[in-house]
């Protein structure tokens, strides 16, 4: 079975958006992480947006994904936003206290990239 999750990277001005889809677990997370990190290092954005709108499942590997990107961005003056979370993914991230390090919004909530 191929990796059951994918990522599409979009760049616009000073924002890198990573649109994630599928099931994020320990099996599928590494290539996603790599693609996001490469984009961040190349584009040096002011904001990284992780779009979870098409994610159908997430376990604590999703927490690791957000936490790891936060650590990468810490020295880069880059803001981190996690958007379109399902109520399940939101619950998992809140449990880890990720709302303290990133701007978390559920699907359907309004989101405006603030620079």
């Amino acid at each position, binding site marked *: 079975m191929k990796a059951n999750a994918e990522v599409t990277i979009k760049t616009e001005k000073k924002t890198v958006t990573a649109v994630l889809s599928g099931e994020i677990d*320990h099996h599928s997370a590494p290539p996603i992480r790599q693609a996001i990190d490469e984009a961040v290092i190349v584009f040096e954005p002011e904001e990284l947006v992780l779009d979870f709108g098409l994610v159908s499942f997430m376990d604590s*590997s999703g*927490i690791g994904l957000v936490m790891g990107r936060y650590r990468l961005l810490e020295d880069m003056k880059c803001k981190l936003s996690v958007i379109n979370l399902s109520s*399940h993914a939101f619950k998992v991230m809140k*449990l880890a206290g990720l709302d303290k390090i990133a701007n978390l919004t559920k699907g359907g909530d309004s989101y405006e990239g603030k620079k």
Partner: protein
Amino acid sequence: MKVKNEMKLQLKSRSVNEGYARMAVSAFACELDPNVEELNDIKTAVSEAVTNCIVHAYNNELGTIYITVKLLENSTVEIKIRDRGCGIEDVKQAMTPLFTTLGGDRSGLGFSVMESFSDSLKVTSKKGKGTTVTIVKRIKGKASF
């Protein structure tokens, strides 16, 4: 409590099986008519436990993961996930939120997630022999809406 239905599943400790394990267990639990949230809770807890077997117990070497799922008459699902891997020296420490022996992108929250998404979690382990994780989840189904 009487067992209504039971399933045994044996998987190689390959990471691709994380997805199969959570899908098989959650599909089996559907007989108890869980709601979407409960189904996600089961999937997540199973995913964490199976990942632990692969990453920690067998340390990325090939071993076997044994999963037993019992559906009990009081609308409860009991999931046992067992390995014959390295075992955990200090279970209490392993279960401490954010504790991880691996670093990198491992959050150290696997047990915390299992704990908060189940009604009870039991971990027994013996160094060099393996670990058994028992997850119990009551299914309220649509009644909880």
